[in-house]
């Protein structure tokens, strides 16, 4: 039996050695896992927030039975959904049918990986950075990955073999690609101002004033496009309940159904975080004595409330208007804004 102990010893030593030599890597990995799990656990809280707020907006109470202030409601719902029968109608493509919600959730979480939410700080001689990963073209990464989320909807529409789903899938993908342009173009003016694609650099460039003051139009365009990208009201055409029943997820039940919502809510957080980082100065508190992360969280929270507020206020735009709005109004405005910004930058602030 000696050789077993020997091997175990060697292995253990190797692991210890490896860990000792690669502490940043370990810290980073742990942090990544923590952030990923945290962002997923934000979802129930956000669902609760939305339902409570919507309740308040609509002169009703919202969930208030499970736990204090109905805080247990999302958990109860999750458990209920877990116990629901998962119906996959027989003419659906099984593999794609399962793949679709997975794609939505995975892309949503992966896109959050590069979102920073505070300055790095030191603990036990280790620099802890307040982001999952810092790639030097962070904002493009978010666009790229959230662009992948389209396939979740397309696949849901394609695999369901249901007319409402297919139409919802088509609609959503056409809508998202159209507004992706606006999103990218309006972010460009911020990139112009900072000269970097890194989200951290963008926040640092806003130490004196947030960019919303100099780029109000870009902010508006970005926010509108952001709402459309996350398929929220009044741009929630893909899942327009009143005409398409439930759009691309008409055929989904139980947990798979919930996963689409999970993706949607994570995207909402990501989008709010992006708006905060690009336009509201990120974690800069502008003199207020709060921790950076609190400043960041408050801003994101505020934007999330705006999302919910918009949902309870506006009727839904019709699809053709949505598309022409994106292509005929937002796109030229973006180009105009871009030209003006770059001209001003080059001529007056070289």
């Amino acid at each position, binding site marked *: 039996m000696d050789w077993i102990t020997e091997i175990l010893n060697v292995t253990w030593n190797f692991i210890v050695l490896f860990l000792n030599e690669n502490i940043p890597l370990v810290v980073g990995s742990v942090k990544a896992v923590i952030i990923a799990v945290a962002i997923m656990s934000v979802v129930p809280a956000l669902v609760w927030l939305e339902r409570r707020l919507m309740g308040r907006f609509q002169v009703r109470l919202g969930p208030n039975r499970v736990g204090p202030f109905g805080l247990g409601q999302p958990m109860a719902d999750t458990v209920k959904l877990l116990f629901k029968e998962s119906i996959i109608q027989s003419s659906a*493509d099984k593999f*794609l049918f399962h*793949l679709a919600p997975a794609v939505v959730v995975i892309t949503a979480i992966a896109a959050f990986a590069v979102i920073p939410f505070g300055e790095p700080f030191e603990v036990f001689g280790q620099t802890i950075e307040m982001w999952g990963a810092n*790639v*030097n*073209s962070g904002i*493009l*990464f978010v*666009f*790229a*990955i959230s*662009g*992948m989320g*389209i*396939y979740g909807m*397309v*696949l849901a*529409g*394609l*695999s369901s073999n249901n007319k409402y789903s*297919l139409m919802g*899938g*088509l609609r959503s*993908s*056409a809508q998202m*690609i159209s507004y*992706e342009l606006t999103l990218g173009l309006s972010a460009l003016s911020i990139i112009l101002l900072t*000269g970097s*694609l890194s989200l951290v650099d963008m926040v640092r460039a806003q130490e004196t004033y947030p960019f919303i003051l100099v780029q109000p139009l870009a902010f508006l365009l970005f926010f509108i496009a952001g709402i459309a990208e996350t398929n929220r009201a009044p741009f929630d055409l893909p899942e327009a309940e009143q005409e398409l029943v439930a759009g691309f997820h008409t055929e989904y039940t139980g947990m798979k159904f919930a996963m689409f919502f999970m993706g949607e809510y994570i995207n909402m957080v990501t989008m709010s975080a992006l708006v905060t980082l690009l336009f509201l100065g990120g974690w800069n508190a502008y003199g207020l004595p709060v921790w950076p992360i609190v400043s960041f969280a408050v801003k994101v929270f505020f934007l999330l409330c705006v999302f919910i507020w918009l949902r309870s206020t506006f009727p839904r735009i019709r699809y053709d208007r949505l598309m022409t709005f994106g292509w005929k109004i937002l796109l030229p405005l973006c180009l105009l804004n871009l030209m003006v910004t770059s001209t001003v930058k080059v001529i007056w602030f070289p």
Partner: protein
Amino acid sequence: MELLIFYPLAGFCVVLALGVVLNNSPVGSAISLIGMMLGLAGIFVLQQAHFLAILQIIIYAGAIMVLFMFVIMLLNLKEGDDTGWIARERNLLLSVLTGLLAVGILYKISGILFTAEMDTPAILPDSFGTVATIGETLFTDFVLPFEVASILLLAAMVGAVVLAKTKLD
């Protein structure tokens, strides 16, 4: 170390590329293609071409494949008719190919591990592959291609309109 990641990624790409060809539903092929492109982006990252990797995802996986998907949806494409290959045989072939590939990758990896003859990666300047460098090169040395590209895109746009618009005045 790089090769340790490269070979599995390359294998992944090859398997998915095979999937594109061998899949008998167009949707499946398209999905494989998307996966392949993501793998390719991974390889670009490995080559320190970060911007290129992201472009690969944005343009190919994000934009062009959406058009593919649309066309699949629009054209009413269904599972391809049986073109002589029975699914089981094809799956068999596919698994054999995959197996061979896996063996090859394992062999390569073990070769790397055991010979410990790591290629020293080329020393790259810090600015390599960054957006700023690309921007400066593209907009000074390659001005002409850049502007000509806009003409090309314009021509392509005209083509798209002429051929796809249902009614021309």
